[in-house]
């Protein structure tokens, strides 16, 4: 098998996909989180400011989902096919809320009536929150695994299979993480009374996230000890959960000192560290067959061919700097506190 720097192609692509989903979590994470707390912001003007804080960038952020999905499909088609068909209902709901959210953002500002704006504020909050939650639900199901047959097809997944206690706990964890992340972002983009309110919301979100993160960690250790085995094997990896906890603990500290940009950087780092933890727990598996270990989907039996992965690594090597440049330019242009003008939502 061909390698670069001692890493084989499937492993490299696993890293690429991980990096993209990490980027997606950080970027769409804050606009989803900001959306999920939208209803808790009072007054129309303040809601407009909050909406316009994500206005110019949410669409670009969603690109990372499309690219992440595309690279997952391209790199690990077997995993993509199995996961998406087994998780049919959550993915369909996910799409439903993605569309509803786009509608809410576009529709809200088009009429002045109070009931109208309240209606779209409600659907915007609901859909943003549900997207954040469903991402966690799918992640929770990946971490647990489910029964697979010898063709790597899920065995008889029914309508509500995806809803289980662990998936719900992971879902609430991603929701609260994104809300905390979104609140920090809003604190960077707002001023005056709205800013004071955002800071209060941020405190609540931090508490909620830390509670959910603790519950999730304990639940994982008690019910899914296999996810911790890698750490017993390589104790040096214990540095990762320690770093994650330090990074999380740093967020309230920085928020208290009103260093919101640093806090945002650390909530972004938290996203990445948590995903790295997931990656370390799984690797080289992608989806554990709970009925028969032989049917487990790994990065090797799910990967596209060496040739295809090689081509795509080239594409990624050319494309990634471009994408990062665009992202940088856009954020640079819209840097600073939100000012409403005639182009605003």
């Amino acid at each position, binding site marked *: 098998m061909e390698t670069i720097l001692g890493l084989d192609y499937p492993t490299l692509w696993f890293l690429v996909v991980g990096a993209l989903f990490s980027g997606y979590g950080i970027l769409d994470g804050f606009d989803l989180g900001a959306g999920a707390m939208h209803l808790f912001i009072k007054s129309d003007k303040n809601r407009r400011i909050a909406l316009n804080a994500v206005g110019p960038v949410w669409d670009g952020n*969603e690109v990372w989902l499309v690219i992440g*999905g*595309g690279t997952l499909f391209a790199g690990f088609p077997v995993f993509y096919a199995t*996961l998406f068909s087994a998780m049919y209902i959550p993915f369909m709901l996910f799409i439903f809320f993605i569309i509803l959210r786009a509608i809410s953002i576009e529709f809200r500002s088009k009429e002045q009536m109070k009931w109208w704006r309240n209606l779209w504020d409600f659907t915007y909050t609901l859909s943003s929150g549900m997207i954040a939650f469903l991402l966690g639900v799918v992640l929770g199901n990946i971490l647990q695994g489910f029964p697979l047959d010898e063709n790597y097809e899920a065995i008889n997944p029914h309508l509500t299979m995806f809803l289980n206690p662990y998936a719900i706990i992971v879902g609430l964890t991603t929701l609260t993480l994104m809300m905390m992340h979104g609140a920090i972002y809003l604190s960077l983009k707002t001023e005056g009374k709205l800013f004071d309110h955002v800071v209060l919301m941020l405190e609540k979100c931090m508490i909620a996230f830390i509670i959910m993160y603790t519950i999730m960690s304990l639940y994982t250790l008690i019910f899914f000890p296999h996810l911790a085995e890698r750490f017993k094997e390589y104790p040096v990896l214990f540095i990762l959960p320690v770093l994650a906890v330090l990074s999380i603990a740093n967020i309230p500290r920085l928020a208290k000192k009103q260093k919101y940009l640093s806090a945002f950087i650390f909530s972004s780092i938290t996203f990445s560290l948590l995903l790295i933890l997931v990656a370390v727990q799984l690797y080289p598996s992608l989806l554990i067959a709970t009925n028969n270990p032989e049917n487990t989907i790994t990065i090797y039996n799910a990967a596209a061919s060496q040739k*295809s992965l090689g081509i795509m690594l080239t594409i990624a090597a050319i494309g990634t700097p471009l994408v990062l440049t665009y992202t940088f330019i856009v954020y*640079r242009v819209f840097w600073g506190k939100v000012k409403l003008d005639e182009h605003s939502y």
Partner: protein
Amino acid sequence: MDVEILSRIQFAFTISFHYIYPPLSIGIGLMLVISEGMFLKTHNKKYEVLTRFWTKIFALTFGIGVATGIVMEFEFGTNWATYSRYVGDIFGSALAAEGIFAFALESSFLGILLFGWNKVSPKVHFISTLGVFLGSMFSAIWIVVANSWQQTPAGYHIVGEGMMAKAEITDFWEMVFNPSSVERILHVWVGAFLAGAFLYISVHAYYLVRDRHQEISKTGIKLGLIAATVFSIVQLFLGHLSADGVAKNQPAKLAAFEGHYHTEDPADLYLFGWVDQENKEVYGLKVPGGLSLLLYQTFDGKVTGLDKFAVEDQPSQINAIFQFYHLMVGIGMLLIGLSLLGSFLLWRKQLFNHKWLLWIFVFAVILPQLANQFGWFAAEMGRQPWVVYGLLRTSDALSKAVQADQVLFSLIMFSLIYSLLLVLFIYLLNKKIKHGPEDAHLIDHRPHQQGINNFFTKD
């Protein structure tokens, strides 16, 4: 109903709906680049007014295009898992290239296009517009490459057997430039340009018959008609090129397009007709030897009919394919006629006196949309019963793990949310058109800087 029918209905429904918007984005994007380019060149305010106005409509079509596009990407995995495993090696790399090279470009700069008027200099704004337009063109390239590979697979080999069989890439460029890619990309691009140009003409024709925004709309119609005339004629040749390709690479599909049951020399061409599938006959108006003439530029020449294919390898809906194909061609001719007539009257400075023709242009917006849809139907139905031509049957491409009740649930959900989306689109489009372009004096000064130090603000 079974999973296959439900999944096929769902895919057909979601992709047809999606295919309304990206062509509009590409087409309007081209008009934006033209009008903003004219503004930079001439500094005439009317071009900026036009650009700003159409930016708002562009945003609408782009937003819905993105939302409905994510659906397609997901459906490959959710509904067509066997297909995804089979083609992942090839289809995946095209999809990934689309995301990285095209989608990121267009979506990132969309923010500046929409919200950046007061934040960046006119030149940087124009570059952003150009970036969004080029991004949408690149998107079309990769998506059509992926689809064309399904029509005319190339640059691959098959490994594994039965359920585990899959196509693996052997030559990336051979896959990209498979026998039908280039002609189909050009055909789709120009179809998109026409969709945009005719929407452009429609809105400005509406203003003219309603006596509103006269100055702007006369310029708008001029730009739109030039584009429509050039591209409707170009499309005639590109359409011919595509049909030639189909005859060469997918003879069963061509036979279905033309309702051509029996291999003949010379072969007749039906201008319109009705296919009697039971008796394998076509009734209608035909040009003797016409099909041979089109394909070989001479009145004789053998054209393969459906009789050369096993029944299980023939598309089943011959009449529908025949009608969709003929409607597409017919509408294409109509578009040429309308564009030439409009341009002629414009040249004679009489267009604005002919309200009846302006009214026709108001409603002609539907024509390129129909042609795009019908062409797509013909292309996709004509490929049946294969999802990957000659390699994988549609009936084998399904997700084995998905049950009918799940697909029914999602189908109902899509019907609801897409109805809402369509109402939204029409409502917002109508509102933006009713509101009309801003008066030039309102946008007279771009308030530069706004107290933000920004290195993109310099002229």
